[in-house]
């Protein structure tokens, strides 16, 4: 219990540190919103011309986006420090973490508050509202109950993958490009329905690097889309299971990394 209290105070301190520069905080949110406005703009342009993408209409595409934004927002809230983890190793800052009587993972995870979360939650909620509306989504009680479960599963997938790729730094030291590819570039894959890719890639995004579970599969469930075009119809309920598997594997990879770790001596 005591350690949870410490984590929270670590976290609260990092929020306070961020809020020091209020103007910059607000502009940051504005910049993120403008970035997504650009992405939505391109989506509108394409759908205006082509009407749908592999059977996904505008409302459905926006809904797909909203699941993604929620998952990414919460993942950033919890796992943001992992983006620059290799720097912690190279600078020897991780040594400081190891000598404290708290779990190293807990300390790394709670040491930084990422403001982009607020922006992502704004985008997620707005997209959820308009997406449901435009796509005529029928919110049953079951769907409402499942929504947080799916988001949690999605966060475990995104966060777990982030933790796994971060752990690579224990062996390679510098792995910035790899981390950025896995965290940011791969996001681009699920901006669109995964069915636009060839079968090999669909398989990869389902079973090897399972980000299709973040939004593509659960969107079938929420939008009452027929699952017949999928690799298997049952996959639309697979998000929580995929999340549990990924997070478990990632914690093992992190622990293996910590055991392997030798200080760089800097």
């Amino acid at each position, binding site marked *: 219990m005591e350690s949870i209290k410490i984590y929270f105070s670590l976290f609260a301190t990092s929020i306070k540190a961020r809020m020091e520069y209020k103007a910059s905080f607000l502009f940051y949110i504005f910049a993120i919103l403008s970035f997504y406005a650009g992405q939505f703009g391109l989506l509108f342009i394409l759908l205006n011309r082509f009407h749908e993408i592999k059977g996904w209409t505008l409302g459905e595409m926006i809904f797909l986006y909203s699941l993604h934004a929620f998952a990414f927002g919460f993942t950033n809230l919890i796992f943001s420090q992992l983006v620059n983890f290799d720097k912690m190793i190279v600078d020897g800052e991780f040594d400081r973490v190891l000598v404290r009587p708290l779990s190293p993972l807990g300390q790394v995870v709670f040491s930084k508050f990422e403001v982009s979360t607020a922006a992502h939650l704004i985008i997620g909620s707005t997209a959820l509202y308009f997406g449901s509306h435009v796509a005529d989504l029928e919110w049953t009680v079951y769907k409402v109950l499942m929504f947080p479960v799916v988001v949690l599963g999605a966060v475990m997938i995104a966060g777990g993958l982030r933790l796994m790729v971060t752990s690579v730094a224990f062996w390679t030291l510098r792995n910035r490009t790899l981390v950025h*590819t896995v965290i940011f*570039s791969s996001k681009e894959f699920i901006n669109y329905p995964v069915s636009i890719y060839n079968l090999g*890639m669909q398989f990869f995004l389902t079973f090897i690097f399972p980000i299709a579970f973040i939004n593509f599969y659960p969107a079938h469930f929420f939008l009452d889309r027929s699952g017949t075009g999928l690799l298997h119809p049952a996959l639309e309920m697979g998000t929580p299971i995929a999340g549990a598997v990924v997070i478990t594997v990632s914690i093992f990879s992190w622990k293996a990394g910590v055991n392997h770790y030798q200080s760089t001596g800097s």
Partner: protein
Amino acid sequence: MNPKLFLKFVSVSFQKQVTYRFDCFVGIVNGFLYVFIFTSLWKALYSQFDTTVHNGYTLTAIVSYAVLVMAVRISFTMDDSIIYRKVMDGSIAMELVRPTSFFFMNLAENVGHSLFHMMARTVPIVIISIFLFDISIPFEVSRFLVFLVSFIAGYVLVSMLNFIAGLLAFWFVEIFPFMLFKYALFTFFAGGIVPLDFFPEFLDPLVKFLPFQYMLYFPTTILLGRASLAEAHSIIIVQLIWVVIMGSICTLMWNAGKKKLIIQGG
């Protein structure tokens, strides 16, 4: 600036990049990932219609555009946080003492960085794409030479954009939001994903008024053979006008920034 010195800076910056081989390999995967996503997207969009030409692009033409625009974009890779770091750690003061122009030194550093990415990433990605996708690029010497001029002009514009954004560090503690905002504008208006031919008419005034299209879209369309040589010449003239305009902004900001630096006492 003395050309010999310029080349020296280019080569130092190039060699700095060579040290990170693992990053470079991941960089190829990362760049190719984008090419794969967008070619898949266009194929999915085009497959929904019997018509084969949309907004002047056949499927082959749009896939070629997707590959080449990404190739140009990756060739433009530079580290846009150099100036920010120099301002933050105070080493910018050294630049005032040096007898060389800071702008040209920065440009040289960018060129070295970009040349490396061009050889290590653009070339392999284009070769892989030629084998994997149905693309067509007209090979005429005169066109290629005109493209090269337009490409260099576009490069100088991007470098100036980054220079201007970087100099904001003189006035703001954190410039990451500006960088994100710049990235958002660039991605949308430079035609990095969707060529400007697909944009709705009401955006025309905005697109035409901004310099972004001269950075990616026009060089790419010249290479693709979508602009006649006569058109290409007038495009290059406008590019040069933008170079003068943005160059003046760079000079003004650098001078104002220097003053600000002296006030702070360095």
